[in-house]
């Protein structure tokens, strides 16, 4: 059944891709909308069985031999994400119908979106880690395509490339973690890994596994220091930002941490890294958000900070913290989704996203303004019972306070964490107000805007209105979602069902409430004085930003690649050869040394006789002479001496066939040399510097010496009888020839000879072509 769910978006993408261009009368979005809507309903029908503890699973074969199986499993956590993916997905598609003009490449847009939807469902439903990884990378790729939707814009390309590099980097380190996990736990199934978690926890690889896996989660969920891809991803059309880059894909990292929480939770390092990075991200993101001038930039940083907050709760790992995290994942999708959509409306209606140009348009766009207020207040955690964001925010504060009651590492930091949480929340309040008041209230300067703003068409408002209603409804009646969705999700993370009744009011003896009040008071003060302290941002040197770091890394990588590659890729044959020779000499000598390879044995040697030695000396002298020859003819003569000397040696060493062949070949070669040399310029004296010459000499001498040594050793360690004895024995009987060498050539090793002739033929063909077509010039043009 679950296969079918995941398969639907992919199938729809195919159908839309092939058919959409044929349907010209309606916006492609209308064709797409039924897909997430239907899936949403389908998932809703599974809510009831799930609440009764009946998880849904299904398995199909993919690569059974590698135990990479399409096994899907729907538990509470997966359900929460599936509902977000399909629910927000439906709203986003609906919104996009009004947002995206039909002049855009809608087919592309919706195909990417559907592919993303299917992949994201795959991520949250896969039980097999490698299937999860497959879908994970696919979400990165579809995100890349969606960010680059307006491919002709330079910023889009920059953002797309950056997001892909960062998330694929994380994906690959996650792959490393998953392989290690699979090796350690001897299974590819997440549930089995959790069942065998003692193997993993007691393994030496526990820490590397955890860090690699967290790298995957942190990059995807835009945690510090990997967060900077998210602001650049805002180049995507706003529906995409609302969907991928706030509600779903960026939460995949949270999903991953939550999913493996049962394995890692309890490790001190896990607590330190996840809570620490989460809190840093919370503070950094919320602080930086008020610096932005682009509306989507503000939202991007706010998303970063919210993700940080959820991440830190996952790090706390206590029951209430996990429930709060789950709750906030849900709430964030609602209020941030509506805020993104409203921002899109503002952009659409005013023609700008620059907060400096906006202001005071509440009267012109009251519905959007109200929706933005609801969203922003919820995000800020304003303590009123109509904002779901406040409820989860308070649970966050509460869980940070209660860390003191736990034992272990959390206790050590128990005093500091609530303080950090408050600081982060103060700035969250600040940017929420900065955003909503900056757009809708304050001084109006409509004249300067490109368009005269007015309320958006109703269709565009439907989705944010639904989300706004959800914000309020859940704010009022949190238990509506608690039992069917949140509790099972939290149960999937912690292993047992939480029994917490969500409520707005916890009495006066509730420290979290006072924290909220502090946040609101200080936050409000900061908002009113924003102009005064905003210059602080200018003091932060741009060099410290991770975006700057990223750019420097990419620039540095390309530059370093260029300089280092140019260093050896000089196009110089001498360099290439020298390196090969040096490598050969070095590697072989080291191995000869390590294996005691050098042997010399004076047994079983042929006696030294003078004629051979004399010929040898002449040959060696002639070989050296070729180096110094400056006359072409002289060079050919001395090299001829070596060749003819070799034929003589062949005669001495009882190889008549060889001697003859060598004689003939040498003669032809000399003739060829003469012919060709007449067309080539005269020999020049080497103009090399002495140092270069010395290097050449060292390389040449060591190469020659090495081969000599190996040859002597090889000759001295003959361990077997040669197969040649058989040839001597059978040459006549089986080959019918007295000349054994001939029998070998034409019969025993006839195949060699056949292809030796082929080589000769090929050479002839090449030479013929080169000469025949020599005046044709370059044929590539």
């Amino acid at each position, binding site marked *: 059944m679950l296969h079918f769910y995941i398969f639907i978006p992919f199938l729809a993408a195919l159908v839309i891709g092939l058919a959409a261009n044929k349907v010209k009368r309606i916006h492609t979005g209308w064709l797409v909308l039924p897909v997430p809507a239907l899936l949403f309903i389908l998932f809703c029908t599974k809510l009831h069985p799930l609440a009764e503890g009946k998880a849904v699973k299904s398995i199909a074969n993919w690569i059974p031999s590698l135990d990479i199986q399409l096994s899907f499993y729907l538990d509470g956590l997966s359900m929460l994400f599936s509902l977000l993916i399909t629910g927000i997905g439906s709203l986003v598609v609906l919104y996009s119908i009004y947002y995206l003009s039909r002049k855009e490449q809608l087919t592309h847009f919706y195909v990417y979106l559907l592919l993303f939807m299917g992949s994201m469902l795959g991520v949250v439903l896969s039980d097999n880690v490698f299937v999860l990884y497959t879908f994970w990378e696919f979400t990165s790729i579809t995100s890349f395509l969606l960010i680059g939707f307006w491919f002709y814009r330079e910023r889009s390309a920059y953002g797309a490339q950056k997001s892909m590099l960062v998330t694929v980097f994380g994906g690959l380190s996650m792959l490393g973690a998953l392989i290690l996990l699979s090796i350690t736990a001897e299974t590819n199934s997440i549930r089995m890994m959790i069942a065998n978690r003692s193997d993993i926890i007691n393994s030496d690889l526990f820490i590397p596994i955890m860090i690699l896996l967290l790298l995957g989660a942190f990059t995807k969920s835009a945690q510090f220091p990997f967060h900077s891809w998210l602001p650049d991803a805002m180049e995507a059309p706003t529906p995409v930002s609302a969907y991928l880059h706030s509600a779903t894909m960026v939460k995949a990292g949270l999903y991953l941490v939550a999913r493996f929480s049962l394995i890692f939770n309890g490790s001190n390092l896990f607590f330190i890294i996840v809570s620490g990075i989460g809190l840093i991200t919370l503070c950094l993101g919320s602080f930086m958000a008020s610096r932005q001038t682009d509306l989507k930039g503000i939202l991007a940083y706010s998303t970063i900070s919210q993700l940080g907050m959820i991440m830190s709760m996952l790090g706390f790992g206590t029951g209430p913290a996990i429930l709060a995290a789950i709750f906030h994942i849900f709430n964030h999708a609602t209020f941030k989704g509506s805020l993104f959509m409203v921002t899109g409306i503002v952009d659409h209606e005013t023609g700008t996203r620059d907060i400096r140009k906006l202001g005071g348009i509440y009267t012109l766009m009251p519905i959007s303004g109200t929706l933005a207020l609801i969203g922003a207040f919820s995000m800020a955690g304003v303590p009123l019972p109509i904002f779901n964001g406040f409820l989860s925010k308070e649970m966050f504060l509460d869980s940070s306070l209660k860390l003191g009651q736990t034992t272990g590492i959390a206790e050590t930091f128990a005093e500091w964490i609530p303080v950090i949480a408050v600081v982060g929340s103060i700035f969250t309040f600040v940017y929420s107000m900065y955003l909503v008041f900056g757009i809708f209230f304050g001084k109006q300067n409509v004249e300067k805007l490109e368009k005269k703003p007015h309320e958006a068409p109703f269709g565009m408002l439907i989705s944010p209105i639904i989300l706004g209603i959800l914000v309020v409804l859940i704010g009022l009646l949190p238990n509506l979602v608690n039992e069917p969705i949140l509790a099972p999700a939290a149960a999937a993370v912690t292993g047992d069902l939480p029994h917490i009744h969500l409520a707005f009011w916890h009495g006066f003896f509730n420290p979290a409430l006072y924290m909220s009040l502090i946040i609101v008071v200080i936050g409000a003060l900061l908002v009113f004085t924003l102009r005064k302290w905003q210059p602080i941002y200018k003091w932060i040197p741009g060099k410290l930003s991770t975006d700057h770091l990223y750019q420097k890394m990419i620039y540095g990588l390309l530059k370093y690649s260029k300089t280092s590659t140019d260093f050896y890729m000089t*196009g*110089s*044959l*001498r360099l290439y*050869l020298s390196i090969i*020779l040096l490598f050969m000499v070095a590697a072989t000598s080291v191995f000869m040394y390590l294996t005691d390879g050098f042997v010399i044995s004076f047994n079983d040697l*042929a006696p030294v*006789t003078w004629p051979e*030695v004399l010929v*040898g000396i002449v040959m*060696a002298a002639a*070989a*050296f002479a*070729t*180096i110094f020859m400056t006359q072409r003819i002289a*060079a050919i003569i001395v*090299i001829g001496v070596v060749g003819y000397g070799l034929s003589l*040696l062949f005669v001495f*060493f*009882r*190889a*008549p066939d*060889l001697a003859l*062949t*060598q004689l003939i070949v040498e003669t032809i*070669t000399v003739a060829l040399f003469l012919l060709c040399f007449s*067309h*080539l*310029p005269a*020999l020049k004296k*080497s103009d090399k510097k002495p140092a270069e010459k010395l290097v*050449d*000499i060292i390389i*040449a001498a060591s*190469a*020659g010496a090495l*081969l*000599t040594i190996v*040859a*002597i050793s090889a*000759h001295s360690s003959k361990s077997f009888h*040669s*197969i040649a004895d058989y*040839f001597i024995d059978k*040459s*006549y009987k089986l080959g019918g020839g*007295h*000349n*054994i*060498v001939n029998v*070998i050539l034409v019969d025993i*090793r006839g195949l*060699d*000879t056949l292809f*030796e002739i082929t*080589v000769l033929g*090929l*050479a002839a063909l*090449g*030479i013929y072509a080169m000469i025949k077509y020599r005046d044709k010039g370059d044929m590539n043009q």
Partner: protein
Amino acid sequence: MEILMSILAGTLFAAGVYLLLQKQLLKIILGTGLLSHGAHLFILTMGKLNRGAPPILEKGIKTYTDPLPQALILTSIVISFGVTSFLLVLAYRTYQSNKTDMMDQLRGTDDE
């Protein structure tokens, strides 16, 4: 004798390598010639030298020199002859089209 011949082959090899490292195409081609001579001498030496009669069967002779290296060398000689001839013509054409026979002027760049 085998040791001496190994040294001779190594010497030929070294001289060949030295020429291979030179700039002028002509010298390099000469170097390849020396290299193949060196290689062939190595092969021959590897099959033991002077152990009996030339490998042509005759009545009454029991020991012959190892025929296999000789066969291998024959194949190799022919092949290197083919390659050398091709290389010579190629050198000529390269000189013709690039107007130089110096390897340091035949480097090229990335952007062609």
